[in-house]
């Protein structure tokens, strides 16, 4: 946790106002921090469904350093935490006009949409001005965990109730196998309890000399 504050100092040294910090845990889970460095808010996300730019199904290409158009879903304006995240995303991902390292033309658009309480990111190349697009770049899903008031720390402003940590998920998955035996035993018990008591006594030898008439037998088959 203390290493996170070091990032603040590093950013101050380099004169950066925004920081995206990616950390990988257990070589399985990727977390992304998005922070406004001096003392602004920061947000921590879990990155899911990550597909990189080198996948051959992503056929688009764009100028390296061209300014992106940013596209947001209307859901971003409906809740306070989404609005804050939207403002952070705008300030982080938009390139200032006439930045020395930027290229002049507009040929790609970033899409941020909200679905299932997560933010879905897509990067499309603008093939034609009338709207035909090809997917370029990485695609990922951000699952918001917490929003902090300070940069990489501070009091929590928002905690996502729908978030389940990947450790908990794996735990539940493992336990599911253990549940099988328990639920089978319980199902058997419940059947026994539901079966009920026999209502009257019957003698099994009563059926021995019962003859079925041929007409009745044909009806059954």
């Amino acid at each position: 946790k203390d290493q996170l504050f070091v990032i603040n100092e590093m950013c101050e040294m380099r004169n950066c106002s925004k920081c995206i910090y990616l950390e990988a845990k257990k070589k399985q889970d990727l977390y992304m921090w998005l922070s406004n460095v001096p003392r602004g808010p920061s947000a921590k996300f879990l990155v899911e469904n990550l597909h990189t730019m080198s996948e051959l199904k992503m056929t688009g290409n764009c100028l390296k350093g061209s300014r992106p158009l940013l596209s947001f879903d209307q859901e971003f304006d409906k809740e306070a935490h989404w609005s804050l995240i939207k403002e952070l995303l705008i300030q982080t991902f938009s390139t200032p006009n006439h930045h020395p390292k930027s290229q002049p033309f507009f040929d790609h658009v970033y899409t941020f949409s909200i679905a299932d309480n997560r933010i879905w990111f897509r990067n499309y190349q603008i093939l034609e001005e009338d709207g035909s697009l090809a997917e370029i770049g990485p695609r990922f899903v951000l699952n918001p965990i917490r929003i902090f008031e300070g940069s990489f720390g501070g009091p929590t402003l928002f905690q996502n109730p729908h978030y389940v940590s990947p450790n908990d998920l794996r735990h539940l998955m493992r336990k599911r196998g253990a549940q099988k035996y328990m639920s089978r035993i319980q199902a058997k018990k419940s059947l026994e309890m539901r079966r009920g008591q026999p209502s009257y006594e019957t003698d099994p030898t009563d059926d021995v000399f019962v003859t079925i008439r041929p007409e009745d037998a044909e009806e059954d088959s």
Partner: protein
Amino acid sequence: MDLDESFSSESSVDSDEELQEAFAAGKLRPGLNLELPASSKTINNTAGLNQTLLTIKKNLPWLERLDVTSKPATTHKDLISQSETDVHDDFKRELRFYCQAQATVLEAIPRLHSMSIPTKRPEDFFAQMAKSDDHMKRVREKLVEKQTAIERSEKAKKLRELRKYGKKVQIEVIQKRQKEKKEMLDAVKKYRKGQKDKLDFLENLPGEKKNSQNKKSADNLRPNKKREFKNKKFGFGGQKKRSKMNTKSSALDMSEFNPNINQKKPGKTGKGKPKPGNKNKRPGKARRQKAKSRKK
């Protein structure tokens, strides 16, 4: 027993669907007990959020930010209202994102044009691209590979269909021939038995066609001239050893002598002046096209 108690207690309180929902939401812990959401788990400091939003908000001109909020553009008939789209339906979800991006593009580009900012990269503007040329080449190859795979499978399908059709036609032709043969034999039998005095059935034989049209004559069944020459020269391993002997018969043999090679004047080979009647031997373009389509 433990199982009895746990079973009876939870069967009276929770239904199956509630349990399933709770598991999906991740609230279930081992033992099938429903964990109630603790009040400390959700922090939603809306006031604080709004406050910070106001502090960090920079009212930059649109040109610096280039952000557009849009709802999906096209009234695509697959795209039902947003609330109905399921996250797990990949196609609809991606379509929704695509339409959202399209709407943004359709809004932002005219706006940039109105500010007289060029948006389209000219053809001669070369700069470093996000993906290397090598990578793009591999992408193109993959696409081409997919195309060819599709075409190959289409061809195979067509061939299979053609074979079926061909087989049908073959069966029909065989049956027709058998029928004709049978009729011929019947007619011959009738004639022999004296029922018919005329021999008309011999006149209109179906097999009578011009010889040139009968492709399966013995001459056509020989291999072509080039093949024959090669067979003669190289067949049976060469036969070079006994091919040239200065015997009386080989000296008298004139079959390999062709006066046209060295004894005639040059320019005498060829067709010479084509006669005016020759054009008619080759059917015209329209006839040839018709024949071609009929053959298919």
